[in-house]
């Protein structure tokens, strides 16, 4: 199972998760890696809103509830790392595999 974000908002439990379809939707909504450095908050907002799709399809991208939750969400910059990881995961799973050339981190 992939990485997920869970929180409660107004007595409802939310689970944010990324599938391959959500990755596609995020790009359709305007997310791209090139803009992540230039306008990080806007990009993270897109990733956050799209992450509802898998488990909470009734929450539309620009619905009042999505806006409310985004406005109230804590540690928006902290979300960046996790959401980018979640967004990358479906693609990483496709390209992962046993390679012959091993690598390591140095320094």
């Amino acid at each position, binding site marked *: *199972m*992939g990485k997920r974000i869970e929180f409660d908002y107004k007595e409802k439990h939310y689970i944010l998760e*990324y*599938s*391959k*379809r959500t*990755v*596609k939707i995020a*790009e*359709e909504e305007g997310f*791209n890696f090139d803009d992540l450095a230039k306008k990080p908050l806007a990009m993270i907002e897109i990733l956050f809103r799209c992450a509802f799709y*898998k488990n909470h399809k009734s929450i539309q991208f620009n619905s009042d509830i999505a806006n409310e939750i985004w406005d109230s969400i804590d540690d928006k910059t902290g979300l960046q790392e996790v959401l980018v990881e979640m*967004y990358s*995961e*479906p*693609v990483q*799973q*496709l390209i*992962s*595999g046993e390679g012959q050339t091993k690598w390591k981190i140095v320094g």
Partner: protein
Amino acid sequence: MEDSRINEGETLSFSDFLERSCIEYMAIGMTYEQFWDGDNDAPKLFREVWNRKAEMKDYDFWHSGQYVNMAVINAISRMGESERDIIPYPEKPYIEQERERKDMEKQRDYKEKEALAAQQWMNDLVRLYADVPKDSA
């Protein structure tokens, strides 16, 4: 599987990459929904299953080759002058022969154990009678 790597000079977004991969994974048995909405770990399992199937198929081909080989050997051996030179074609498939061999081994082991137990029982009985004082009989 079809190669999904990026061609020279081509830029591929995640969406493009996923669209391309979807075709490959559907070719090895994933449904459209499983690919787009399913668990992110699922493609790895499908890849493993596909590799296993490829191995099994390869084994099947090898096995067929063995039977063809035996048929050729059998045919050539019939060209000899004597009946004794004939190398027979297997009467049963190799897997069935192997199963029968294992069953026979099991039966043989069981019989040996039974014989040992009977021998032990007989020895115990003889020892019991030998220990009985003669005048008590």
